[in-house]
């Protein structure tokens, strides 16, 4: 069995599991839907954070825009449910991508910790602005269009949308990371000044990366709003202290800069989260703070990073000292 076969098997396994999970565990459909949302959050964060070296604390703003645009479109138009959802998601995606395209050149021009803190401020500022803006319901938020059917069917419906989005994100990134784009953003991460000195259009690639993240985050906003049933500016849409921080943590936990890292991190984190919620209700946020400190201090390489050190050959890497380079696959 060679690597391609193993890989194919894993994909089939995960895809099938995703397809049948809500049928096998209907009572957990909402939690499973959120699992795919977490996967999407972690994957989109990792484009900037892990692959490009730009640690964003403000990606949540793109998701929040998605929530609001879909909800507002549903509120203000007379279209049927499915049409309004599709149109809403489409418009959400456009608005989110546009936001990334406009803010990108300004914000991504900053490096390192300035970028991190600036995006943190941006996320909170947008949250506060939406929380005070009457057109979008201010602090009361918006109630999106209700699914025309039973609650169980509604959960299934949104579950499969989020599952599809997560899979689409994974597949898209797999292709992108193997293209010129993937190498360019890695080069920016490894040595941005060198990348510039070699003529790479760094600004263009940086903004493009954020736009890719915005694409998926924007699309996800509408379905999540529909699933939750209520767009709250601070607790759902622009939930910096929860989703915004979790994105970072999940990607680091799983191993930033890898394709599977964010996925694994999201799964581990989400399951741990649910566990804490069940047994330590009230202390979960305290645990979150502790978890961040522990992971950052003791386990910054994450699960994939740790595996890579223990078993470099699994990743197709060649270890120093081997006389002949194996015709191994490119690093995942």
């Amino acid at each position, binding site marked *: 069995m060679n690597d391609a076969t193993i890989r194919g098997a894993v994909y089939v396994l995960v895809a099938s599991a995703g397809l049948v999970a809500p049928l096998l565990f209907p009572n957990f459909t909402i939690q499973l839907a959120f699992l795919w949302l977490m996967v999407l959050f972690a994957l989109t964060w990792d484009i900037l954070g892990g692959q490009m070296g730009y640690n964003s604390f403000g990606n949540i703003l793109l998701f929040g825009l998605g929530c609001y645009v879909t909800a507002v479109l549903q509120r203000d138009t007379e279209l049927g449910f499915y049409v309004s959802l599709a149109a809403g998601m489409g418009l959400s995606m456009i608005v989110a991508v546009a936001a990334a395209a406009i803010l990108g050149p300004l914000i991504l021009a900053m490096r390192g910790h300035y970028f991190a803190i600036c995006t943190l401020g941006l996320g909170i500022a947008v949250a506060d602005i939406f929380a005070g803006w009457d057109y979008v319901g201010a602090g009361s938020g918006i109630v999106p269009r209700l699914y025309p059917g039973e609650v169980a069917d509604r959960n299934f419906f949104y579950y499969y949308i989020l599952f599809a989005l997560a899979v689409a994100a994974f597949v898209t990134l797999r292709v992108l990371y193997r*293209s*010129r*784009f993937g190498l*360019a953003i890695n*080069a920016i991460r490894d040595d941005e000044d060198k990348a510039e000195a070699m*003529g790479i259009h760094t600004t263009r690639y940086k903004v493009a990366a954020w736009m890719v993240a915005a694409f998926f985050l924007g699309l996800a906003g509408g379905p999540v709003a529909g699933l939750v049933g209520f767009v709250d500016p601070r607790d759902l849409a622009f939930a910096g202290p929860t989703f915004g921080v979790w994105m970072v943590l999940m990607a680091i936990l799983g191993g930033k800069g890898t394709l599977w890292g964010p996925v694994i991190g999201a799964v581990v984190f989400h399951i741990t989260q649910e566990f804490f919620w069940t047994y330590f209700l009230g202390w979960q946020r305290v645990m979150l703070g502790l978890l961040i400190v522990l992971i950052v201090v003791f386990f910054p390489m994450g699960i994939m990073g740790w595996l890579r050190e223990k078993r470099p050959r699994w990743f197709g890497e060649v270890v120093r000292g081997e006389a002949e*380079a194996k015709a191994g696959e490119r690093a995942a």
Partner: protein
Amino acid sequence: MSALLEVHNVSKAFGGVVANRDISLRVSRGRIVGLIGPNGSGKTTLFSSIVGYHPVDSGSITFEGREITSLRVPEIARLGLVRTFQQTRIYGKMNCIQNMQISVPQARATVGEMFSRFPPEVTDKAEALLDFVGLYSKRFLRAGDLSFGQQKLLEFAMALMNQPQMLLLDEPTAGINPTLINGLIERLQRANADLGITLLVIEHNMRVIMNLAEHIYCLAHGELLADGAPAELQKDQRVIDAYLGAH
């Protein structure tokens, strides 16, 4: 032969310290020109000024007849003027082949190009150049895991991959095992002769630069001290005094 690079009266100061004062030089197409001078004479600063790393205080720089003084680093690099770094900079977490692939000329960046895969010709060329510098067997190693000397060779190969018109090399033999220096010199000469790349080289190793360069500029204390053919400069008392016994 026409002048490919012309530096006119360029000055650059950092705070109160004048790093370059009124420096002029020209490099003709296809030549190998050396830039020497004791430590602190402003050589690397001059390189940084030429490639747009920082703005100059006064003076002008033209490349292929075109004014580049106010252009930025990526733009100048895309015009075909590429530099290597004294500390040797490569992309540490990527393997050698990837380092080479991303070093292709970046002239057009349409959306289609940005997201497309590298065609096999790019990989072939990358492997050929890695072979040229002797790193073919190490091509799947992470660049950060290479030795310093190997990284220097990789950086050089990456520069060649970029198909520059002119290369500014900042101390290409520093830190290299003396037994390997001849090999590097030979590769530089071949890059110049076969690929037509004009070279401007900062060097401390006198044996190397005197044999490699056709024309040499000597800086001292931020100013141009002397310039001429290697044989002349070796006998120039001002140059000897500037180094004062040091190499």
